[in-house]
């Protein structure tokens, strides 16, 4: 076999992997049949038809579209988050490192997950993945804005006084610069949390983990509701300074009670519903394990989505507040704040975004426990074999 033929054969074999498993036989058939076609143009034309088949059956147009859209979103987020040249080198290096490592995680982990656990095989799985990616890309520039604001030392006046008061342990930074060095430990921890979120979401939405599409859909909706209510409670990273009627930022409000109820009940209900929809015939032991797994996944996804939602909205609101007078007016409508008071609130809110890191750690832990409890609850209510109650549907096979 000549070397161009070898290359063509190797490329063909590689391209076959792009075709879904159910269609791979057909693509292989075209490739195998090419050996019967006379060499030269007829064989080349036959193989070109095979390439068309692979492109069509592998849904290449959709894949390339999604890839381009993801690359454009990642590029825009990286561009917005990339530190300006005026920023002192140490901070700039930390922010650049954040951007590069986050993008590497977003690009590399899906390949690893696909190899180990298979691709997503439902619309719900793809939507959950897309939402997770969009959230992480949105957090990146918003975090960069708040990081730079909280570290920038005012030139003087009341702002400098406010800054010194809020950073009383920070020594004597030079006005007009960025104070101190980056918090490397904090940055590494945030990157670790980001990696965990991406890895867990990718794993739970992969084919071989067998999380039902209904489980993902139910838990993502519950998580979105939880995130929105939590944002209304803590619109500025736990800083209780917003006065907007929809964003009270108050600790004594019926909304807070609703937030607590949702924090515990959303994963519980999602876990119970996911377990209720899971039916494994014949083997009660296997059925219990399968239901517990669906409940576990539902709780984790529910509160993970909730934590991501409140984090995106909260950090974005804080970043917009720093950049836009309109957002400040919206948050503090009806108040006539002095410039120094506004600066103090901005500084306070920027420092409080660390609160969302705590949320991102705590929420999923609460979620997986509540989800497991919910699935156990659904298991106890399930009709025993032989009873008159109707059977429930199987969420997904294999």
């Amino acid at each position, binding site marked *: 076999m000549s070397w161009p033929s070898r290359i063509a054969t190797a490329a063909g074999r590689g391209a076959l992997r792009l075709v879904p498993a159910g269609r791979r036989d*057909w693509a292989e058939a075209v490739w195998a*049949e090419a050996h019967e076609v006379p060499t030269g143009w007829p064989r080349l034309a036959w193989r070109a038809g095979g390439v068309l088949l692979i492109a069509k059956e592998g849904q290449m147009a959709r894949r390339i579209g999604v890839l381009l859209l993801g690359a454009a979103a990642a590029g825009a987020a990286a561009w917005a988050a990339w530190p300006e040249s005026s920023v002192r080198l140490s901070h700039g290096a930390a922010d650049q490192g954040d951007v590069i490592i986050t993008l590497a995680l977003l690009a590399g982990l899906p390949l690893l997950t696909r190899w180990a656990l298979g691709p997503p095989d439902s619309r719900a799985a793809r939507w959950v993945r897309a939402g997770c990616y969009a959230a992480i890309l949105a957090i990146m520039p918003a975090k960069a804005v708040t990081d730079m604001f909280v570290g920038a030392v005012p030139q003087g006046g009341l702002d400098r006084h406010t800054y010194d008061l809020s950073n009383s342990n920070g020594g004597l930074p030079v006005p007009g610069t960025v104070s101190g060095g980056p918090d490397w430990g904090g940055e590494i921890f945030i990157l670790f949390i980001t990696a965990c979120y991406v890895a867990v979401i990718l794993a739970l939405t992969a084919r071989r983990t067998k999380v039902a599409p209904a489980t993902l859909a139910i838990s993502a909706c519950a998580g979105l509701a939880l995130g929105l209510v939590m944002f209304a409670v803590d619109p500025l990273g736990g800083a209780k300074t917003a006065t907007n009627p929809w964003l009270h930022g108050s600790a004594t409000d019926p909304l807070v009670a609703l937030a607590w109820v949702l924090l515990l009940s959303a994963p519980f209900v999602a876990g119970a519903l996911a377990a209720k929809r899971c039916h494994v015939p014949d083997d009660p032991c296997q059925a219990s394990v399968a239901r517990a797994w669906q409940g576990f996944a539902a709780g984790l996804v529910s509160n993970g989505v909730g934590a991501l939602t409140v984090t995106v909205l909260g950090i974005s609101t804080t970043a917009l507040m720093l950049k836009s007078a309109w957002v400040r007016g919206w948050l503090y409508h009806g108040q006539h704040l002095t410039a120094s008071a506004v600066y103090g609130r901005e500084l306070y809110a920027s420092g409080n975004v660390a609160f969302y890191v705590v949320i991102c750690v705590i929420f999923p832990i609460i979620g997986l426990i509540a989800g497991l409890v919910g699935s156990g609850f659904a298991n106890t209510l399930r009709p025993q074999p032989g009873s008159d109650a109707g059977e429930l549907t199987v969420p997904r096979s294999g």
Partner: protein
Amino acid sequence: MGSRGEFSPQTLAVLAALSGQASAWQHGYALARETGLKSGTLYPILIRLADRGLVEACWQDEPVPGRPRRHLYRLTANGLASATTALAEAELAAAERAATTTRPGANPRRRRGVAAPVVP
């Protein structure tokens, strides 16, 4: 099944080729030669027919040494019934069109597309 307009002319050509030797397994290249279709057209048609249960496919048991195994195709019982009906209807439609065009005053404009195959 097999109602008029259900199958494209290309699909009818494939059905005709397969129903020619209904019980025999046929290769993709042989079908392509018989129908005049390119591989990029033929195989999507075979896939859709297989999805609808009209065509069954299998891999060759004993491959020729030095060559990969070939994929084989034939009509299912359901496929044979559908093909027979669809081809008969296509032949009837072609005859009706021919009668219309030969009638005095009829529009002699020819239609584009692959001619309906003759039922063997």
